[in-house]
C-alpha cells in the first residue's frame, strides 16, 4: 500500500478547519496526506464535512484555518482555475449549450491550445471512455451513463494530476453504477492519476479505493485500506457505518492476554478483542459482523464463551441466508450464512448457541447518546 509519509504526500491537509458561520466547525482539525497515484475515498454521512473538504481542495471554499498543499505548494490562495485539478460533479455539470466536443474542448481552449492539438486530445479522451462518435451530440441527448463518461473525459482531457469526484455515480441505476465503479478505478490506475472520491455509499468506497477516509462530525474517524476498515474498525461509528454489524452493550470485566472479558447487560459473558477499551469497569459496545457468527458447535473453538439465542426469523436471499435472532435481550441480532449444500437452515423458535473467535468480536467505545 502507498506510503503516507510527509515527504511524498501529493495532497496534504494540515490542521484544516472550516466554519461557515463562525459558530460551528464543519471540518475540525483535518490532517490528511494523499500520496501520488492513490485512489482515496472520503466516505461519510451527509453533513460530515467530506464534500466541504473536496470543495476546499478544489478551491471553491477557503479553509478557515490550516494549510492545504498540492505537490508541496500551499494552495490556499490559488484560485480554482489555476490549480489544474480535474473535477467530476454529481450532476455531471456538462455545459448544456455546447456539444460534447465543445465541452471537452473548453478546458483546452482556455489553456490556449491549438485546434489540431485539441482535436487529437478530444478524440483520445472520448475513446478512452468509449464515447467516440458522440462529438456532435448535446448533453441532453445522452443517457445518464453516457453523460457520466463524458464528464469523466472532460475532467481528464487536460491531463490533470489530481482528479476530484463528488458522488459522480449517485444518479445512475445500480447495474450501471457497478460497471462505472469498475471503469473509473481502472482508468484512474492506468493513467496513474491521484483521485479523491467523495461518496456516502460504503460499497462504492470499499470496491473502488486504495484507502478510505471515514468522516463523521467534521473529523476523519479512520483512514485505512478497505479490508482493514471492514475487519478492524477503530471505533463504534466506523463499525456501524461500514457494512452490517451486530452490537451488544456491556461492561469490561477483565483484560488479559489481548482478550477482554465482557459481561453483557443480561449477565452473559463473551470474549472480545479490546480496541478502545483500556481497563475493567468501562462500558463498551461490542461489535461482531453477521458472517463471523458461528452456531455449529463442532466448529466453535473449545473453551470459548457462547451465548444462548432464539431464532426469530429465517430469510432466504439466494446466495446467503439471513437469520434474525434474539440474543441477550436484543431482537435484531443478524447472522449470515452461505447457501452451501451442507448448510443448516434454522427454523424460527429453535434454541441455539452462538459463538465467535475473540478477534472477530471487537470491544469498542460506547457512543454517547
Amino acid at each position: 500500500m502507498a506510503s503516507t509519509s510527509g515527504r511524498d504526500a501529493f495532497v496534504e491537509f494540515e490542521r484544516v478547519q472550516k466554519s461557515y458561520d463562525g459558530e460551528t466547525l464543519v471540518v475540525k482539525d483535518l490532517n490528511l496526506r494523499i500520496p501520488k497515484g492513490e485512489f482515496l475515498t472520503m466516505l461519510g454521512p451527509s453533513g460530515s464535512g467530506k464534500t466541504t473538504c473536496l470543495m476546499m481542495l478544489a478551491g471553491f471554499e477557503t479553509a478557515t484555518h490550516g494549510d492545504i498543499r498540492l505537490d508541496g505548494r500551499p494552495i490556499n490562495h490559488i484560485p480554482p482555475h489555476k490549480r489544474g485539478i480535474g473535477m467530476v460533479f454529481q450532476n455531471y455539470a456538462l455545459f448544456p449549450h455546447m456539444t460534447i466536443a465543445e465541452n471537452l474542448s473548453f478546458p483546452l481552449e482556455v489553456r490556449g491550445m491549438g485546434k489540431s492539438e485539441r482535436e487529437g486530445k478530444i478524440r483520445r479522451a472520448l475513446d478512452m471512455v468509449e464515447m467516440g462518435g458522440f462529438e456532435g451530440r448535446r448533453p441532453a441527448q445522452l443517457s445518464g451513463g453516457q453523460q457520466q463518461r463524458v464528464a469523466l473525459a472532460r475532467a481528464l482531457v487536460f491531463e490533470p494530476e489530481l482528479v476530484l469526484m463528488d458522488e459522480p455515480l449517485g444518479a445512475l441505476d445500480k447495474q450501471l453504477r457497478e460497471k462505472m465503479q469498475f471503469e473509473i478505478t481502472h482508468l484512474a490506475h492506468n493513467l496513474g492519476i491521484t483521485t479523491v472520491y467523495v461518496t456516502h455509499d460504503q460499497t462504492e468506497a470499499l470496491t473502488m479505493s486504495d484507502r478510505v477516509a471515514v468522516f463523521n462530525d467534521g473529523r476523519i474517524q479512520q483512514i485505512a485500506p478497505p479490508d482493514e476498515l471492514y475487519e478492524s474498525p477503530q471505533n463504534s461509528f466506523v463499525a456501524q457505518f461500514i457494512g452490517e454489524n451486530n452490537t451488544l452493550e456491556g461492561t469490561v470485566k477483565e483484560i488479559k492476554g489481548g482478550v477482554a472479558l465482557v459481561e453483557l447487560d443480561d449477565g452473559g459473558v463473551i470474549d472480545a478483542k479490546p480496541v478502545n477499551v483500556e481497563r475493567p469497569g468501562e462500558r463498551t459496545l461490542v461489535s461482531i459482523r453477521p458472517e463471523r457468527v458461528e452456531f455449529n458447535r463442532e466448529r466453535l473453538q473449545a473453551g470459548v464463551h457462547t451465548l444462548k439465542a432464539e431464532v426469530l426469523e429465517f430469510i432466504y436471499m439466494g446466495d446467503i441466508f439471513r437469520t434474525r435472532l434474539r440474543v441477550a435481550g436484543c431482537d435484531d441480532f443478524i447472522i449470515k450464512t452461505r447457501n452451501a449444500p451442507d448448510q443448516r437452515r434454522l427454523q424460527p423458535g429453535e434454541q441455539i448457541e452462538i459463538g465467535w473467535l475473540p478477534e472477530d468480536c471487537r470491544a469498542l467505545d460506547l457512543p454517547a447518546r
Partner: protein
Amino acid sequence: MADTAADMPTDIVGALRTPDGRPLKQALAQAERRARIRALVLVLPLLAFVLLTFIIPIGQMLSRSLLNDTFSANMPALTRWFDENPGAEPDEAAFEALVMDLRAAKEARTQGAVGTRINYEVPGTRSLFTKTARRADRIEPPYREAVLDVDKDWARRDLWAAMRSAAAPVTTNFYQAALDRKITPEGEFAFADKQSRIYITLFVRTFVLALAITGLCLVLGFPVAHLLAVLPMRKASLLLILVLLPFWTSLLVRTTSWMVLLQGQGVINDTLVALGVLGDENRLSLMYNQAGTIIAMTHILLPFMILPLYSVMKTIPPSYARAARSLGATSWTTFRRIYVPQTVPGIGAGAILVFILAVGYYITPALVGGATGTLISNQIAFHMQESLNWSLAAALATMLLAAVLVLYWVYDRIVGIDNMKLG
C-alpha cells in the same frame, strides 16, 4: 395468433378496429369528445370577451386606416361625377354637383367634417368648404363662375385631386401621410413638404429610444437578477419585493416622482449644485427631452427585464460555473462563455418584453418627454383625441404593429421564440 386476430380485428387496409367493429380512430374521437366539449365551454366566456372587447375593436380601428367614407357619404353627387369622369378636369357638371352636395351638407351640418377630411390632404382648405356651404343656397348657374366668385381657390388642381382621391372610400392616403409621403397631382409618390415631415423621424426616434431603454434595462437588470438568483431565499424574497414595489405603485405617481427628481430645480440638480459638482447656471436639463424619457421609462420597465432573467438564472445550477472554473477558465471567461449563453432565453424574453412595451409607451413620454422625447404613441393619441383624424391614428398604429411584428420575426430568426422563457 388466431386469438389476437379476434381481439383486434383489422380491415383490409390494416386500420385497427375495436372488438365491436368500429374503427379505432373513430372510437377514440368519440371517447375524447366530451372532454373536449367541456374544455371548450370553459374557455368560451374568455373567448367571447376577447373577441368582443379586443379583436373586433382593433380590427375596426385598423380598417379605419384604409376605409374613410366621410367624403363619399356626404358628397354623393360629386362622388358620382368623379366615378363617371375618371381623370377629367372639373367641368360645369362637376361644379353643379359640388354646389348640390354643399347645400345638402349644410342641411345635414356635415360640411365641417367634409372640409376636415380634405384639409388632411390640402392644409388650409377646411374654411373653403364651410364658407362655400354657407353661401351655397345663393349660388346660381353658371355654377363654375359663381363658385370661383366665392373663392378662387376652388380652381386649384391639387384640391380637386385631393377630393377625387377622398371620394374613393378605400384609400391609402393615410398610410402615405404616416410615411410623410403624398401623391402629387401628377401621380408621383413623393416626400411631403419639409415642415410636415414628422412621422418618419418619430418612428425612428421611437425605435432608437426603445432600443436604448432595452439596453439600459439589460445592463442594469442583469446584475440584480443574478443577485436575486444566488442570494439565500429570505434575502432574495426581500430584494424581489423591492423589485416589484414599483409595480404596486401607480404609474402616474412614479412618473410624477421622476418629474420631481429630474426637473431643473429638482432633487438631482439641487444636490449636484449643493455638492459643487455643477454651477447654478449649468443645471442639467434632465426632463422634457430624450434623457427624461429614457430615465423614467428604464425605471418603469426594469421589472419586466429582471423577472424573466431571474426565472432563468434561478434554474442554472452553480455547478456549471464551478465546473468551468475547475477546467481552468477565469471568472470572466466563465461568465462570458458559460453563464451568459445559458441566460439567453431570459435575455430574449426580457428584451422583447421591454422593447415592445417601450415602443408603445404613452403616459411617461407624454409627461416627461417634452418636444424631443415624445414617441409615436403620443402622436397617435394626439390624432385620436385632438385632431380627431382617427384614420391617420389607425394608419400609424397599424404601421407600429407591423414594425413590431417584423422585429418579432427577425428575433425568431436570430434567437428563436422557443428559446424564450417568460417565467
